[in-house]
């Protein structure tokens, strides 16, 4: 049945409509594939009963001619999304067996569109990490391996479970979240397509918060078209999220295959960082050539404050996180470790419940917000953020339609390889992606080739606010020019 799992959703959708197979059959194939792929550790919770029940409902709707946009889609859900009646932990011990009595807005929309939940996907604890190695459930394994090596590689982070599952064909699409690159970097590491929408495009309601002003929900999918289809059902205004924006959701899928003729694509010189591998450099110029060949105009642009983005990000994000994670105190839900008094209970609970990276960021966050340091760190970081935003505004105002950059500075690295590296080295993974979050812009990561070691490499396209359509159109050009990249099954 694995051939069912090799179809994209666009292909499966056609077959489901033609009744070539049922949604139950499709989802059963995925449940079997999941079982065979448990060694990848992509899922932290499988929900086969829910999957089969919802798949049967999908079949009934298809039979009645009432199929939704995602009808029957075997979906993996990042464990950061609250799912009604299904354990949700953000891959942290502190949430214990927390089972929310509510469903996140985004997954509610997807379910209404007919998506079928297969289970909950691994992620870095509270989405803090770039390799998914901070998860309380262990690290998911990248379905890709270096040529001639069976060393386990990371699937990126924080949405490593989502990227691994999509690349391993053990879900057809996955929800993910992106605070500094957590959708785009894992997608880049696994040959999948990841979309970080404009801030405010998807509701954050019901998604465990990391850094509220940066977090956005988005999909990881097999190809650009599938990503566009998923986005169409994830986006939308929600009055329960005050930062959600009430603007119509366009037909994203229609943008896939749209001509890019006459579009101006900016190539920012500041992204040519020191020590950038030659193959990344080559991938980038090749992508520019491909867009040019499709009729786009390539222009060099300048985003002068780029180099300050990463340090500023690592002030703003931990600051918000230190406050957002205060609610995990052992009082109302999740894990509690007793103490002699309330203060000791807090200390015991949070020491036992949070992993080291989360603790580090809470401490950084508390520090940069504390009296006497607030102006020097938090306020300055916010000023930098404004400048980064202005950089992009200037470029877009000059008529640039989208910006092309590498997605990551390298291909996927080995599990444990960065164990002895300083946290800052790990943070460098986000160097090309954080600017997009800081500016609240949409960004897409699209596979564009393989490294010398045979690992996927990706390019990033950054768009104007709420112009995801141009990103789908341009990403589709890159995808068409380079083909799709699929990991061979070895697991």
């Amino acid at each position: 049945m694995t051939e069912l799992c090799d179809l994209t959703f666009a292909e499966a959708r056609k077959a489901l409509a033609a009744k070539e197979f049922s949604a139950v059959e499709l989802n059963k194939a995925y449940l079997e594939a999941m079982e065979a792929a448990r060694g990848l550790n992509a899922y932290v919770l499988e929900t086969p009963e829910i999957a089969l029940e919802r798949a049967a409902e999908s079949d009934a709707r298809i039979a009645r001619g009432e199929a939704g946009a995602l009808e029957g889609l075997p979906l993996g859900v990042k464990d950061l999304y609250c799912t009604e009646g299904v354990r949700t932990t953000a891959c942290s011990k502190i949430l214990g067996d927390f089972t929310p009595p509510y469903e996140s807005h985004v997954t509610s929309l997807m379910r209404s569109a007919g998506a079928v939940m297969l289970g909950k996907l691994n992620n870095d604890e509270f989405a803090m990490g770039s390799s998914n190695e901070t998860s309380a459930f262990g690290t998911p394994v990248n379905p890709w391996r270096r040529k001639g090596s069976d060393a386990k590689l990371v699937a990126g982070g924080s949405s490593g479970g989502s990227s691994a599952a999509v690349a391993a064909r053990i879900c057809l699409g996955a929800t993910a979240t992106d605070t500094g690159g957590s959708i785009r970097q894992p997608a880049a590491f696994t040959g999948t397509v990841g979309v970080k929408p404009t801030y405010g495009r998807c509701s954050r309601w019901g998604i465990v918060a990391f850094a509220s002003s940066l977090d956005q929900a988005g999909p990881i999918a097999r190809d650009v078209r599938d990503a566009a289809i998923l986005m169409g059902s994830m986006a939308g205004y929600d009055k329960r999220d005050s930062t959600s924006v009430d603007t119509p959701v366009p037909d994203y899928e229609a943008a896939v295959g749209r001509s890019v003729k006459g579009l101006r694509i900016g190539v920012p010189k500041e992204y040519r960082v020191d020590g950038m591998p030659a193959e990344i450099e080559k991938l980038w110029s090749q992508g520019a050539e491909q867009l040019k060949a499709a009729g786009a105009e390539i222009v060099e642009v300048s985003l002068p404050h780029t180099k300050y983005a990463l340090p500023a990000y690592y002030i703003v994000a931990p600051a918000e996180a230190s406050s957002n994670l205060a609610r995990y105190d052992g009082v109302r839900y999740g894990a509690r470790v007793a103490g002699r008094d309330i203060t000791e209970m807090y200390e015991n609970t949070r020491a036992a419940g949070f992993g080291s990276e989360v603790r580090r960021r809470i401490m950084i966050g508390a520090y940069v917000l504390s009296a006497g340091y607030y102006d020097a760190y938090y306020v300055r970081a916010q000023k930098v953020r404004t400048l980064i935003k202005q950089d992009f505004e200037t470029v877009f105002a000059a008529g640039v339609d989208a910006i092309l950059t590498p997605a990551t500075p390298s291909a996927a690295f080995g599990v444990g390889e960065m164990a002895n590296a300083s946290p800052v080295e790990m943070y460098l993974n986000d160097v090309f992606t954080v600017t997009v979050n800081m500016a609240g812009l949409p960004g897409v990561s699209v596979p564009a080739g393989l490294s010398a070691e045979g690992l996927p490499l990706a390019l990033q396209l950054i768009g104007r606010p709420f112009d995801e359509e141009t990103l789908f159109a341009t990403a589709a050009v890159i995808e068409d020019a380079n083909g799709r990249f699929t990991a061979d099954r070895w697991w």
Partner: protein
Amino acid sequence: MNAPSKIPASSKLIAGATGDWEIVIGLEIHAQVTSEAKLFSGSSTGFGASPNSHVSLVDAAMPGMLPVLNHECVRQAIRTGLGVKAQINLTSTFDRKNYFYPDLPQGYQISQYKSPIVGEGVVIVDMGEGEQISVGIERIHLEQDAGKSIHDQDPRLSFVDLNRSGVALMEIVSKPDMRSSDEAKAYVTKLRTILRYIGSCDGDMDKGNLRADVNVSVRKPGAPFGTRCEIKNVNSIRFIGQAIETEARRQIEILEDGGAIDQETRLFDPVKGETRAMRSKEEAHDYRYFPDPDLLPLVVEQSEVDELAAGLPELPDDKKARFIRDYGVTPYDAMVLTLERESADFFEQVAKRGDPKTAANWVINELFGRLNKDGTPITESPVSAAQLGGLVKLVADGTISGKIAKDLFEILWTEGGDPRELVESRGLKQVTDTGAIEKVVDEVIAANPDKVEQAKAKPTLAGWFVGQVMKASGGKANPQAVNDILKRKLGI
């Protein structure tokens, strides 16, 4: 407003061993906003419900829950700002105040730290005998209330009730413009009156819907401000006064002993009559304020402010001025009558039917006195404004005497009925027929020859005769007529 050049009235100073001291007081009033729902969630704000029954997912800070501003609370804060003649800030922001406590589920309180919705304003406070002080308002901001920790239910555990968690409060911060406990009490009373007029807070201190943090310092008159202490969470006007007096004396004692005041947070214990240190400046929390990223800046249109201003009721100061002007009542009576909007309305209904000055007398002395004694609110007064108005009219046109009027009031209070009909049916009309009065006077004089002799020698004894005549006439005789006739007959 803070200029130390203001010469304090010596009556407000506290005499110490080293001379007189002046108290400087500033108040932060926490007023619960009258609204159906909480500040950032749809939960009810009802009081007295069983614990944790008015708690939404947002109030309990479940993972992934987000605050959504209840605009009705914003409108109430703006109305309040307009009520104290304050600047309304069209753009304001919400910040997070971070600290850990079990009754604070989010681990932070959403408040307005940097940019409050209401800026500077002023409250005029009557101190009696024509003296007025003006107390500056520094700011009013919106914030969430915390839940309630309950420590006395279990020897080992504490319980938490989140019904109050997330309820909207207005923090009304005054400038340090008060110089005595009386001024502070009068300010809180006045502010409470304004809030109740506007309907933005019910001012119910018993339910904790209005409570004060009291900042107290002392100084020698004319000297710069001293170091202040903050007394937290004082929940009655009487206790505010006591806390200030107690704290000021404590500070004076320390200073006169050559000590210095530590800036700290204190608690007032009304049972022991003392304030106790809660935490010092060094132990003060670092609240790590920062803008709440879940909420956009609060932007209000000037047109909405204008609309709210147009819809405000007549405020106490304006009403008082109008009562003095239109009804000719004294400033003191006008102040008393306008303390509560309902009382003022009642008075106007009475005044419409009879002489306003008589009406003011009856409302303040008879009606308020009786209501206070019975603990009955004016809205439930057994005597209606129409009835009291009828009574006042009967007094004013001389149909009944003041003494009879009191009896009539008693009948109205206990039995009800129409005043004019009661006067008719029970024969309470004042006797102005001089012939009838003369007859009674003659009888009294004839019965008391010895007193007549004494009265001729000492005319003040005529009062005794008046009393006897009134008694004999069942209180119905016109007192003026009795007086005149008696004087004539006794020849004094």
